[in-house]
């Protein structure tokens, strides 16, 4: 039956309402997971707190496995899901910029808003910088345009790129996630002095 909007089960006009509801839920989960704290976010880089990695890996793995089962039971047609096109080298550059921004600023774009919601002044400054960055990028876009659209690999999934089935990739990715959970737990145990105080 799904996806609901392309199949016309939910009218097109509702997508902004749904986006708003999902956004509120996303913000709530971010704040509830402690992502409003810069310490949690930069902790991944310094190796004392991997909660960000765990939350996102869990979200991705649950969504991956869930969607594959939905597709299998016929609740959702995965072929109708839009796959974002991959621009390999611009994406790598963008990811590096984003990562550096994470470490310097202590927020990712989403968590800066949840931090504002709980009244953090550094997050307000961070968001100001974010808008300045958006403005500068838009103004200087013609200079980056050629690079921005380079290396287009089309709408491919990793499974298609590697030549394995998406189910197989889901399994491999889940295994990677579980290994990552265990390894980060080991790292935390070594780096943190007061390890017993944490729940995970």
């Amino acid at each position, binding site marked *: 039956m799904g996806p609901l909007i392309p199949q016309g089960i939910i009218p097109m006009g509702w997508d902004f309402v749904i986006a708003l509801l999902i956004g509120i839920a996303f913000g709530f989960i971010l704040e509830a997971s402690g992502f409003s704290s810069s310490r949690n976010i930069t902790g991944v880089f310094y190796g004392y707190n991997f909660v960000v990695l765990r939350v996102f890996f869990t979200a991705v*793995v*649950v969504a991956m496995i869930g969607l594959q089962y939905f597709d*299998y039971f016929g609740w959702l047609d995965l072929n109708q899901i839009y796959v974002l096109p991959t621009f390999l080298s611009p994406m790598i550059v963008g990811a590096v910029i984003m990562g550096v921004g994470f470490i310097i600023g202590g927020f990712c774009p989403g968590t800066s808003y949840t931090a504002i919601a709980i009244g953090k002044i550094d997050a307000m400054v961070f968001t100001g910088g974010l808008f300045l960055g958006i403005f500068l990028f838009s103004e200087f876009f013609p200079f980056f345009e050629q690079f921005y659209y380079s290396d287009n690999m089309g709408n491919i999934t990793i499974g298609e790129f590697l030549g394995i089935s998406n189910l197989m990739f889901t399994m491999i990715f889940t295994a990677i996630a579980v290994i990552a959970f*265990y390894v980060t737990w080991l790292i935390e145990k070594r780096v943190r002095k007061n390890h017993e105080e944490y729940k995970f």
Partner: protein
Amino acid sequence: MNKNYIILMSMLLVLAAGLLLLPEKNNPKQMNPEELMWDIVQPTRYVTTDDVAKSIIEQDPLLMLVDVRPESDFQDFALSGAINLPLEGFASDDTRAELDYPKKNIVFYSNDDLRADQAWVLAKRLGFNNVYVLRGGLNQWIKTIIQPVEPAQTASAEEFSLYTFRKGASLFFTGTKLSTTATTKESVVVTRKKKSSAVAGGC
């Protein structure tokens, strides 16, 4: 590490491994209902009896006639070269194998076009795009090809040429001899002129 996390992680791993063990999904690719609706209203999915007659006479190798009536009807009368795939049990694997000629033009027919239309929709949903329906079915076949009606004297030249074709096709399919108008043979009487003068003797 907390025991709950270990349980949750093993659940995720089991579910992910379960994906690999799932039996092959048994819902073949289906046509989008909107596309099907669009194709249904297209008049191009019909072929006329004249087209089919012409293809049979010319021994068109791309023509594939499929009779969707019950087998007993098929035994009584069928178009030449047709195969029988009754509508009952049409969506079986055998049917799929029988129709799996992507290059051929598959024409369904029944007594009228009702059952052939049903077969057409089923075949379309099974993913065959090269399928057509004989408009009017065998009733129309009898009406137009086997017993063509002579058009009125005031009819257009096209109608007359169509009639001529149908008449010829009728001869082809029924095998009756050409009933030419009986020309009464009059014995030609040769009348010779009497010689006016007897042969005179020579000198």
